[in-house]
C-alpha cells in the first residue's frame, strides 16, 4: 500500500494530472489504450462465450484436457505471447493494434472460459429444455434464459479482461510499437527513459481512475445462486450437435497450441536450417536461474501473506475487517504491474532505504503482483471448511493447533499447491514491475527477452524467441506438474 501512496503523493504535488489532458499526444495515447482494451474485451467475450459453452455444457472425452489447455495462455508471460503473435502475423502486421488485440484475446480467453464456464456448468439444461418446449427458438432461448442467468458472470469476466487489456504492458511493448503507445508503456517511458516521475505518477493516477470507474460500474451484479449440475454426455445429443462441438473443441485446442508451436519451430530455425544454437547461450540460462530464485522467494512470500489474508477473510465475522483485508489484497489488481514497480522505485530511492536494484525488492514486487490471485484461490476453499469439523477434532482431544493442522491445513493443501504454482509462474513471467526495478547484470529471463527484442539483428531476435520458449515451457511444466500431483493425490485417496 505504501508504494501506491507514494505514487499518489508524487502526482498530487504537481500539476501533472491536468497536463495529461492538455497534451494532445497523451490524450491520444489514453484514447488508444481505452479503445483497444474495449475492442479486445468485446472480441474476447465473443470468442470466449462460445468456448465456454463447448467446455462447460456437455461431458466428452477430451473436455478436461482442452479445458486445462485454455488455461495455458493465462500462465504464459505476456511478453512471450507478444513475441508469438509477432511471429504468427504477416510482416506488414507484426505491430499495431491488430496483433495486440489478437494477443489480448489469446491471453484472456481463459478468464472468460473459467468465469462464465463455471456459471454455465450450474445452469440446468432443463431451463433451456423448458424454454424450447414453450416455443423459444435457439436464439430466443439464449437471449431470454441463458443470457440473463449468465449476465453477472459475463460482466464480471468482461471487467477483468478490460482491466488486463487496459493495463497491458508485455504484449504492448512487443506488438503495439512506438506509433501506438499504451498507458503502461508511457508510464515506463516517462519513469525510465525521461526520468519524469511526476508525469509517470500522474499517468498511474489516470490509469487507477479508469480502472476504479470500470469496477464501480460493473460491481454488485445481482446473481441468482445455482447448484452444481451433472454435465449431460455429448454422446446423447444429435449428430449435428456432436459434430459442431467436436470441431469447436478441436479449434480451441489448435488455437491454444499454435502460437507456442510456431514459437518453438522459430527458435530452432536459422537461415542455414535447423539449429540449437539459440538455446545454447549462457546468458539465457543465467537469467533463467535468476528468475527461478526470485520466483521461489516471491512464491513463498505470496503464500505466507496470501494464506494469512485468506484465513483472516474466511475466519473473521467482522465485515469491516473483511472489507479492509479484501481491499488491501486487491490493490495490486487495480494498480498495474508497471505502476507498482514505479511505486517501489519511488518509495525505496533514498537513504536509508535506497534498495533500488536489489533482487529482493524485485521479488517483493512480484509477490505483490501474485498476492491477489493467491488470496482468491485460498479464500473460497477456507470458507468452505465447516467449523464443526474443527470442533469435532477438539472434542476428540486435539489441541487447537493440532485441530487446525489436521483439518484446515489438510483440506487447504490442494489450493495451496495451486496458489504456489500460480504465484511462481506469475513471478517467472513478470515483466512490468521488473522493467523498472531490475539492475543491469541481474536481469530476469522476461527482462532479458525485452532487452534482446529492443536490439536489431536476427541472432538477437532468435535468442529472444528461444528465451520466450524456455519461459513458456517452464510455466506450462509447473502448471502441469501441480495439476498432475493434485490429480494423483486425489486418485490415491479414492482408491
Amino acid at each position, binding site marked *: 500500500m505504501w508504494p501506491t501512496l507514494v505514487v499518489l503523493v508524487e502526482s498530487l504535488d504537481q500539476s501533472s494530472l491536468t497536463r495529461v489532458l492538455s497534451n494532445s499526444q497523451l490524450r491520444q495515447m489514453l484514447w488508444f489504450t481505452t479503445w483497444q482494451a474495449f475492442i479486445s474485451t468485446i472480441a474476447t467475450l465473443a470468442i470466449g462465450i462460445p468456448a465456454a459453452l463447448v467446455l462447460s455444457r456437455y461431458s466428452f472425452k477430451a473436455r478436461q484436457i482442452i479445458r486445462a489447455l485454455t488455461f495455458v495462455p493465462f500462465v504464459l508471460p505476456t511478453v512471450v505471447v507478444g513475441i508469438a503473435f509477432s511471429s504468427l502475423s504477416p510482416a506488414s502486421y507484426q505491430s499495431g493494434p491488430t496483433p495486440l488485440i489478437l494477443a489480448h484475446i489469446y491471453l484472456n480467453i481463459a478468464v472468460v472460459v473459467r468465469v462464465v464456464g463455471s456459471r454455465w456448468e450450474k445452469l440446468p439444461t432443463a431451463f433451456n429444455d*423448458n*424454454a424450447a418446449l*414453450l*416455443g423459444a427458438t435457439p436464439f430466443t432461448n439464449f437471449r431470454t*434464459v441463458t443470457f440473463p442467468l449468465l449476465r453477472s458472470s459475463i460482466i464480471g469476466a468482461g471487467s477483468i479482461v478490460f482491466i488486463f487489456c487496459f493495463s497491458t504492458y508485455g504484449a504492448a511493448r512487443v506488438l503495439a510499437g512506438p506509433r501506438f503507445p499504451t498507458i503502461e508503456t508511457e508510464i515506463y517511458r516517462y519513469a525510465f527513459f525521461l526520468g519524469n516521475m511526476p508525469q509517470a505518477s500522474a499517468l498511474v493516477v489516470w490509469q487507477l481512475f479508469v480502472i476504479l470507474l470500470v469496477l464501480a460500474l460493473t460491481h454488485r451484479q445481482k446473481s*441468482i445462486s445455482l447448484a452444481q449440475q451433472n454435465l449431460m*454426455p455429448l*454422446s446423447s445429443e444429435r449428430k449435428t450437435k456432436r459434430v459442431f462441438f467436436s470441431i469447436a473443441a478441436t479449434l480451441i485446442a489448435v488455437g491454444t497450441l499454435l502460437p507456442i508451436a510456431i514459437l518453438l519451430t522459430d527458435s530452432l530455425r536459422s537461415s542455414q536450417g535447423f539449429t540449437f544454437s539459440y538455446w545454447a547461450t549462457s546468458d539465457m540460462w543465467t537469467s533463467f536461474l535468476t528468475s527461478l530464485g526470485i520466483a521461489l522467494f516471491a512464491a513463498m512470500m505470496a503464500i505466507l501473506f496470501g494464506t494469512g489474508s485468506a484465513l483472516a477473510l474466511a475466519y473473521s465475522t467482522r465485515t469491516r475487517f473483511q472489507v479492509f483485508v479484501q481491499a488491501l489484497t486487491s490493490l495490486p489488481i487495480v494498480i498495474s504491474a508497471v505502476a507498482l514497480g514505479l511505486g517501489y522505485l519511488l518509495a525505496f530511492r533514498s537513504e536509508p532505504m535506497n534498495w533500488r536494484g536489489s533482487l529482493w525488492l524485485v521479488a517483493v514486487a512480484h509477490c505483490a503482483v501474485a498476492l491477489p490471485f493467491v488470496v482468491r484461490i485460498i479464500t473460497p476453499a477456507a470458507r468452505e471448511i465447516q467449523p464443526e469439523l474443527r470442533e469435532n477434532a477438539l472434542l476428540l482431544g486435539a489441541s487447537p493447533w493440532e485441530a487446525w493442522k489436521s483439518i484446515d491445513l489438510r483440506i487447504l493443501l490442494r489450493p495451496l499447491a495451486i496458489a504456489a504454482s500460480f504465484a511462481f509462474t506469475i513471478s517467472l513471467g513478470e515483466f512490468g514491475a521488473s522493467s523498472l526495478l531490475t539492475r543491469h547484470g541481474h536481469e530476469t529471463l522476461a527482462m532479458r527477452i525485452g532487452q534482446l527484442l529492443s536490439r536489431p539483428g536476427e541472432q538477437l531476435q532468435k535468442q529472444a524467441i528461444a528465451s520466450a520458449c524456455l519461459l513458456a515451457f517452464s510455466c506450462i511444466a509447473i502448471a502441469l506438474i501441480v495439476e498432475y500431483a493434485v490429480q494423483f493425490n486425489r486418485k490415491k485417496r479414492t482408491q
Partner: protein
Amino acid sequence: MTSPFLNISHLSFQVPGESTSIFSHLSLEISEGEIVAILGPSGSGKSSLLRIICGLTPASSGTVHLQGEDITNVAPHRRNIGMVFQGAFLFPHLTVSENIAYGLKMRKDTKESQAHRVNEMLNLVHMSNLSQRDVANLSGGETTRVAIARALAPAPSLLLLDEPLTGLDEHLRIDLAKDLRTALTASRITAILVTHDRNEAATIADRVVHFSDLISAS
C-alpha cells in the same frame, strides 16, 4: 378409421456409444383428450420416452406422429408439446407471472391476452395471490403448481408430466394429484404422466399402462 391423436411406433432408444438399448420397439396410441399414466420402475426409460416425444432427445429408430403428422424430426420449439419436469425448473430470474407468460410471449400474444391467460392459469392452480412473487420464495407444492400452469398456458397439443409430484410430502402429493386431475380435465388436454406411484397414476389418469407392456416382443 381415424388415426390416433398420438401414435408412437416401434420406437427404440440407445445412448450413442453404448452397446445396450434403453428400450426397443416401443409402441403406444393415445386418443384425443385422454390422460394416460405410464407406470414403471426407475431407470426403465420412462423419462427418455418423454424426452423423445417432445424432441429433446433423438430416438435411435421408430416414429412419433401427433395429430396425424410425423414429428419425429421436428425441433422441440415447433412441436407445441408442453412438459412438466421432475423438479419443475422454473426460470429463477423471472417472477411467477413472468414464468407462466413465457410461452405466450414466444407465441407473440398481445400483452392483454397474456395477462388474461396468466390470470386464468393462476386461478386454475390456485396461485392468484402469488403472481408477483420471486420463484425462489415458493414452497415445493407452489413450485409444482406454477410449473403446471406454465406448461398449460400456451395450450399445447400434448402435455407430458415427468413425475411432477416427486419430492413432495404424502399429503401434499394427494392434494396436488387431485388438483392436477381437475386442471387437466378442465383444459381438455391430452396428457402422458410418467410415475412409479400407482395411487398417483390412478388419481390423475384415465388409463394406466405399464412401461414394459408397451414394448413388443419383436
